[in-house]
């Protein structure tokens, strides 16, 4: 049994807006073991990023606030730490990479300056040592002529290379957890594949756990072991990757998989889309948030919000309907 390093329980995040309080994350719980990769999928606006930003306490407050829950990292509740202590966790213990490599690097600072910054902040390195290490890191993520390129600015790098720089930066202090917030979305497909290979290799060498947020089920399939599907600020299905793809139980998961082209499927099959948009929750959900878009909807769905229940060992789903019969479980 591997050590559990991150244990999030009942996380709730809200945003105060002019239209009312938006309940962005509603009681999310998950755990991360040492060195494992978990995937969080869901469409835009369902709370994936906000969940991870909440764990790192990067939600702008106000308007955002973390209303409840705990996030224990090695037994220490991140949500209760002082800002000062939190700073020593960010970048050093838990680091994060973002979707858009074009905007997440500062255009007026050299790559070297940005790459060495976490090491100077957390590892008390001298500038020379940090420069050396930065060159090694660039080499490690597959950028050649590293020590020369440290003097370059971000606009002299392509998108894929910038994302490599981002990951080098995120890994510079040997973090225990890497949160990847849709890091491949802005890359084209060939670069995506290279990047995923790189991440796998880095994980094998460095042994950090990865939380991979994406809406691309194809990307996550080859990467993660365990997967959570998120909708309306809650996890609605959780299973091992193979199980989830082979035997999806929530109508939303089925919809997501149905909208995905498959090479091994029947060729003439039409891709199915899910009608409608994810809800903006001004109240904590009292009915199933997916009900308005669900084809299996029954009365109970509109009266009570389902919670995650065990469907089979290691496979949990939050749905009132048994989709094989179309009736209540």
């Amino acid at each position, binding site marked *: 049994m591997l050590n559990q390093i991150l244990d999030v329980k009942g996380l709730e995040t809200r945003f105060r807006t002019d239209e009312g309080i938006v309940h962005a994350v509603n009681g999310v719980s998950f755990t991360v073991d040492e060195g494992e990769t978990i995937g969080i999928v869901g469409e835009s606006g369902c709370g994936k990023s906000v969940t991870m930003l909440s764990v*790192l306490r*990067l939600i702008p407050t*106000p308007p955002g606030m973390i209303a409840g829950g705990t996030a224990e990292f090695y037994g220490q509740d991140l949500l209760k730490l002082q800002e000062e202590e939190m*700073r*020593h*966790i*960010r*970048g*050093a213990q838990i*680091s*994060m990479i*973002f*979707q*858009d490599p074009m*905007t*997440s*690097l*500062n*255009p*007026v*600072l050299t790559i070297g300056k940005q790459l060495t*910054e*976490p090491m100077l*902040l*957390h590892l008390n390195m001298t500038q020379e040592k940090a420069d050396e290490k930065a060159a090694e890191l660039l080499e490690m993520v597959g950028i050649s002529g590293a020590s020369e390129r440290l003097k370059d600015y971000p*606009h002299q790098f392509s998108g894929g290379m910038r994302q490599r720089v*981002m990951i080098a*930066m*995120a890994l510079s202090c040997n973090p225990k957890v890497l949160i990847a917030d849709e890091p491949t979305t802005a890359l084209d497909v060939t670069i995506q594949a290279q990047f995923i290979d790189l991440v796998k290799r880095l994980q094998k060498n460095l042994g950090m756990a990865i939380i991979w947020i994406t809406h691309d089920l194809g990307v996550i399939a080859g990467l993660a072991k365990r997967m959570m599907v998120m909708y309306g600020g809650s996890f609605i299905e959780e299973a091992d990757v193979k199980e989830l793809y082979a035997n999806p139980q929530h109508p939303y998961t089925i919809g997501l998989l149905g909208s995905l082209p498959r090479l091994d499927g029947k060729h003439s099959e039409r891709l199915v889309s899910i009608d409608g948009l994810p809800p903006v929750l001004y109240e904590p959900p009292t009915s199933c948030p997916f009900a308005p878009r669900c084809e299996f909807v029954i009365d109970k769905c509109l009266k009570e919000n389902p919670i995650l229940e065990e469907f089979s060992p290691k496979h949990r789903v939050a749905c009132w309907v048994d989709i094989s019969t179309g009736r209540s479980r």
Partner: protein
Amino acid sequence: MTIIKKLLKNPTSLIGVIILSLYIIMAVGAPWIAPIPENSRDAYMIPRDGFSTTPSPPSEEHIFGTTEGQYDIFYGVVWGSRTAFRIGVVITLITTIIGVVVGAISGFYGGWVDEILMRLTEIFQAFPFLLAAITMTSVLQTIYGRGEAGGLIFMAKIVAFLTFGQNPAENLDPVQLQILTGMLAIIFFGWMGIARVMRGNILAVKEFEYAVAAKTIGASDMRILFNHLLPNAVFPILVIASMNIGAYVLTFAALSFLGLGAQRGYADWGQMISFARNWVPSLVEHWYIVVYPGVAIILFVLAWNLVGDALRDILDPRLRGSGSV
């Protein structure tokens, strides 16, 4: 470096740069161009050749003539360039620093911090600039004259150190003090424009992902603000600052002209023009008492404006794609 190259390529800015270089040569070389008389106690006090009130026209001895009280105009114009640079650069430096800090903090923290700082800025902006500066100068001169300045002494000493290299441990020189009051008055009412521009720029850049990215690596607020956001927001400030140098010299000249800036006989262009106040009806005859210092001011301001204009074109992000800045 590319900025300087571009400044030299653009014809307008080239003119500006050339004029400025001439002024710099004049300021640096003042002791050789207009040698200090042997009996002089203060190089910045214009030497006099007699005490007659009537100005005398350009001659071999005084190539720009002498103004009322027989002050040598050539000496004043040459040494006045030093005063102009000192005053312009120091006022701009201080107002820019104040403006950048106030604007950056205001934009970065937002909320009530922003509210308080921006309302304060607006209160200062509500005063007509020149009138406020004139009033403030006379008030400050009274306060310092009575020796009741208290905390203001500290400020004057900072400005004195930056302007004259005056040792802060020593007492303030009364000749300098009069200039310092004028400078302080301009500084009091001169920082708001920069603060507002800076606030807007910070508001724009803090939304970029690299601001969040900087936070995820564990950087502190101040580090994010000054290391990551400021370099992205500060370029437009350079443009405004370079134009401000000219504008502040002009304002200071106005103060001097009214007898509030530099002391009588000090090598300052505005002060020199103030000698002409009594000779307005006969300016056709005594043209040299206005023209030389006047042209000096005009060209100085013009040069800074040309450079500022060109800087704006060079640093404009929409035009930036063509090169690599």
